[in-house]
């Protein structure tokens, strides 16, 4: 690992002013950043430890929502009674990600900012536009079984690995950001992540020097929430496809629906197309199939990952059927 200097500020304002230094990066749980630093994929010259900033609390909001501090670790968020009862899709997504040890360390802000990545991103002998802009994409025409089927580009077909962010996408979470001038802005999670386009090294709309201070969960949407993850092994594995769904029914008709996919794109993928195909229609398999077709209408396989398109359709149908049954 390359040398770096280290500091641990005690307040957020000091942290955001410290990060303006060239080569500086925030570190929180470190579970993704240190992994990448060991491989010389990330090489900050200065680390600002934000893990002890007073941002670990989960607070009630006056409108019935919750504010999750950016430093709250994944296991604490998953185990929070308010999250478990009011936002079960988030708790389910969190416990389906990583391992017990990693969830005890990984922060909420760090989970959002983990790199969108693929095995070629890790392989420093291979071309990768995300790691080394302009060096090409080795996954296109390479071994691409786990790669994106929606929103990919000729420059990058990597997927965002977070489960948490998929649930937050279905919950329309907002990300709270603090900049060096001390001003705060909020970005809805669907606008927070970028598609790869021709700049796959840019993954979010985070501006240089901005710090994630919290995540705002609006009041829970009506209906039953469900997260389903499909993967190559039963535990401790990234999703091939995952679905976060919220479905509300009235007299057998779907009154409200939210659908987000994981494992299919460079970002957590909100499917407004699927939602439009569900709302106002009967809660039955024919409707779910229409929604699944709508969700994957623009999907493009890369060869090895062609199966993901059908897998995503089926996973959505099954998740919707299960959610609607008990909503």
């Amino acid at each position: 690992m390359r040398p770096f200097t280290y500091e641990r500020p005690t307040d957020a304002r000091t942290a955001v002013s410290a990060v303006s230094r060239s080569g500086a990066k925030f570190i929180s749980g470190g579970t993704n950043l240190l992994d990448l630093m060991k491989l010389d994929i990330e090489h900050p010259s200065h680390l600002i430890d934000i893990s002890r900033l007073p941002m670990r609390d989960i607070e009630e909001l006056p409108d019935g929502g919750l504010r999750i501090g950016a430093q709250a670790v994944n296991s604490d968020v998953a185990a929070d009674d308010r999250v478990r009862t009011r936002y079960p899709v988030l708790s389910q997504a969190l416990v389906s990600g990583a391992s017990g040890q990693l969830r005890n360390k990984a922060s909420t802000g760090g989970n959002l900012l983990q790199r969108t990545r693929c095995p070629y991103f890790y392989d420093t002998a291979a071309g990768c536009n995300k790691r080394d802009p302009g060096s090409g994409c080795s996954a296109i025409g390479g071994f691409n079984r786990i790669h994106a089927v929606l929103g990919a580009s000729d420059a990058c077909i990597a997927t965002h690995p977070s489960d948490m962010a998929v649930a937050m996408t279905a919950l329309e979470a907002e990300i709270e950001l603090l900049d060096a001038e001390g001003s705060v802005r909020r970005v809805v999670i669907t606008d927070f992540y970028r598609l790869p386009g021709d700049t796959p090294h840019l993954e979010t709309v985070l501006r240089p020097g901005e710090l994630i201070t919290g995540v705002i969960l609006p009041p829970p949407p009506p209906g039953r929430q469900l997260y389903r993850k499909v993967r190559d092994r039963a535990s401790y594995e990234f999703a091939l496809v995952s679905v976060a769904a919220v479905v509300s029914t009235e007299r057998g008709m779907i009154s409200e629906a939210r659908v987000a996919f994981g494992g299919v794109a460079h970002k957590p993928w909100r499917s407004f197309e699927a939602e439009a195909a569900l709302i106002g229609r009967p809660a039955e398999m024919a409707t779910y199939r229409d929604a699944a077709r709508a969700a994957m209408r623009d999907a493009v396989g890369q060869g090895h990952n062609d199966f993901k398109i059908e897998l995503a359709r089926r996973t959505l149908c099954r998740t919707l059927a299960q959610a609607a049954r008990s909503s």
Partner: protein
Amino acid sequence: MSEPDTGGGERQAGAAPLSAVELRVNDQVRRLELDPRTSLLDALREHLRLSGTKKGCDHGQCGACTVLVNGRRINSCLTLAVMHEGDEVVTIEGLGAPDDLHPMQRAFVECDGFQCGYCTPGQICSAVGMLAEVRAGSPSHATAEVASSRISLTDEEIRERMSGNICRCAAYPNIVAAIRGIAEGGAA
């Protein structure tokens, strides 16, 4: 050695200045002067000579380096020692000794929960941390209803909760048996 331990191995050119850190390891205060790059794992093994904690993959994938920090299990390879100022670290050496085994260590011996033994310290630290999580009512992916705080520690729950610890010898059935025995006995 009377001077602060700056760590085995040569310092690389261009290395950052050393950082002072004070850890409480197995109930002892330990002061170290470390290159900021030093992982908690390397601080334990190379600087404090606590070699019970193992380095497997060094990337958080295998769990051999699992220790308890402030009572919670983490991968010591994926965290910097300097980030743990004042923290309480418990390693396998702090859980028990050959003549005074921790109940979980004894259960692993009695159930034959290992073959080569390399993953075992991490398995045991992880199991102790895992049972504390269950007692606190934390849900897992195997918990049918996340909203319920009543967790029945089935074999499926144990396997899911221990998935961050790989055993290349595949002693899993006996590891599960050891943990189940302790969970049912109420110790650890």
